[in-house]
């Protein structure tokens, strides 16, 4: 489970002064559900997710992830989280197998457990033909599969996806979307950030619209449609953003 309580992150910029990357963001994600964080570029999605993954410390507020506080027990939180983002790359000079093994060891797994888990993931994701190939020689789709395997090698109960399909072709994006669904089916707590409306419509059980660092609305797709009297998610999103004042922060 994930529970964010008034998460706030303030950055200081020499020219612009204080900037709120996230401001009083509160939400709750139950196991077996996908929470979609929908927002334009710079809305605060990545900042919020980085705080949940303990890559950034909240300026104010806190979050509990899989029973551990992000500020008090960051190492324990990371051990229970799989974080996949467009910005999390692979080591070019390692093979896919070495990449999975490295993150298995960093997560405290034994060599035997890593071997067994690598075999299992390779079969599940269809990685057999490129498992021993260096990451810099892999296609985009192969890289994304390796990234997925790296993320779930330790079988975390919480999955955080930050725009995981950004820049991917249709087929590779489908692999990622399929994997997110599998996570939900496996009872994991999933949070999925994107600015692609169709992905949110297809995947998410609950949608949180974020803009200017603030969470503007939170509901299921059907509730949002009923609340705003609109069927198209894009129209709903635009109305919410314009209501908050402006196109972007």
């Amino acid at each position, binding site marked *: 489970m994930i529970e964010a309580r008034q998460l706030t992150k303030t950055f200081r910029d020499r020219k612009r002064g204080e900037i709120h990357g996230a401001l009083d963001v509160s939400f709750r994600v139950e196991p077996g559900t996908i929470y979609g964080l929908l927002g334009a570029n710079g809305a605060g999605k990545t900042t919020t997710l*980085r705080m949940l*993954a303990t*890559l*950034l*410390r909240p300026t104010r507020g806190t979050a509990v992830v899989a029973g551990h506080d992000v500020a008090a027990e960051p*190492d*324990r939180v*990371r*051990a229970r*989280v799989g*974080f996949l*983002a467009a*910005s*999390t*790359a*692979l*080591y*070019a*000079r*390692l093979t896919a197998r*070495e990449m999975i093994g*490295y*993150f298995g*060891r*960093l*997560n*405290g797994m034994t060599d035997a457990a890593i071997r067994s888990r690598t075999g299992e993931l390779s079969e599940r994701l269809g990685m057999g033909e490129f498992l021993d190939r260096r990451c810099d020689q892999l296609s985009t789709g192969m890289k994304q599969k390796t990234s997925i395997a*790296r993320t779930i090698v330790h079988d975390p109960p919480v999955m955080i996806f930050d725009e995981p399909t950004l820049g991917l072709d249709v087929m590779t994006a489908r692999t990622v979307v399929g994997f997110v669904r599998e996570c939900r089916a496996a009872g994991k707590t999933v949070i999925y950030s994107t600015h692609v409306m169709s992905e949110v419509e297809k995947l998410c059980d609950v949608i949180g619209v974020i803009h200017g660092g603030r969470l503007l609305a939170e509901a299921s797709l059907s509730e949002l449609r009923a609340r705003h009297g609109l069927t198209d998610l894009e129209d709903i999103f635009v109305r919410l953003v314009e209501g908050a004042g402006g196109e972007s922060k």
Partner: protein
Amino acid sequence: MNWRNITTVYVKELKDSLRDRRTLISVIVVPTIVMPLMFLIVGKVTASSVAKAREDVPTVAVIGGTDSPEVLKRFREAKGLRVVDAKADWRDAIAAKTLRVAVDIPDRFAARLEAGEVPSVRIYHYQGELKSENGVRVVERFLAELREDTVARRLAAAGLPKGAARPFEFRRENVAPPEKVGGNLFGGLVPYLIILLCFTGAMYPAMDLTAGEKERGTMETLLCSPVPRVDLVLGKFLMVLTGSVSAMVFVLISTTASILIGGAALLSGGAGTRSAVAAAGAMRPPELPAGPLPIIDPLGIVGVMAMVVPVAVLFAALAFTVSLFAKSQKEAQSYLGPMIVLVILPTSLGVLPGMELTPGTALVPLLNLSLVCKEMLSGVWNWGYIGIIFGSSCLYAGVALWLAVRMFGREEVMFRT
């Protein structure tokens, strides 16, 4: 701090670096092949130009002396120089290097000598120009012989023995063992090379493992792991240190091998050897004492390596911290590049002749290391200074490492945009 985590990170970084061509070049190829080759080529070229300059028969213009034909005749017949008539523009000719030296023989030189006066002969030359200086040496030798003959003739005329004007002889003989002579000659250069390579050896891995990872997006991937930041820093830092120490070890191995394999040829010829040694010592005079050829004390080398280890830790931690601040490898390079000057400046002062270890110089970082290493290579073990310098280097290294850990934990550094 968990050693399993640190080892996991270190082993991965080592494997990754060994597959990286650029790291291999900076840590292995440059210290092993390029540096000794460079010094060998520089030494050979210098030795050959010095030898060529010495083979050159200097052209000497004699001004005046027409009223002293005997002296002029001796001048023209002297070996090792070619006498030409002085033209009006002899000064310009020296400046243009078409004439090496001009000698001004005063009026009535021979007559004034006979009369017991002390006439003065002037030698005009091009200061700092090797061939002109060589010409001066030949002319001075000729004039010294002329003076000796004059003295001998006067003594004979007075019925005095030769020993009346030269009552005793003296000669110098080296008693310092070869390793001390070697230490004194090369002692400044060896630590200089080692310290410089220690830094350059740390540079590339430091940039690759920090700014490089940020640029490639793997830093964020790594930070997602549950490993405490201090373990990540120490694992990565150990790799940077490995790069630094490897560069030092490879340069020592290659230099030793070069001396063992090519040394016999290099150190076999007298003048050639002296020239090569002078070239290697850069600022040393070409005169080497007679006797056994200089060598370096192996114990001194061991001492130098031990003293350099904390400095390698310091360099690795500094290079790591500075690179960590950069967003890209290019930016890291622009920070670390100027730092080489800060390393070279104090270290190169230690190479200067006459620079000694004193309570003052013992406090200057890197210069103190350079000087104490120079002493150790000469077989001088000043334990007080060694203790102070080793201790202070360890302290600086500890502070730098602490700073690296602190910086790694700062999100404004790790996620700087």
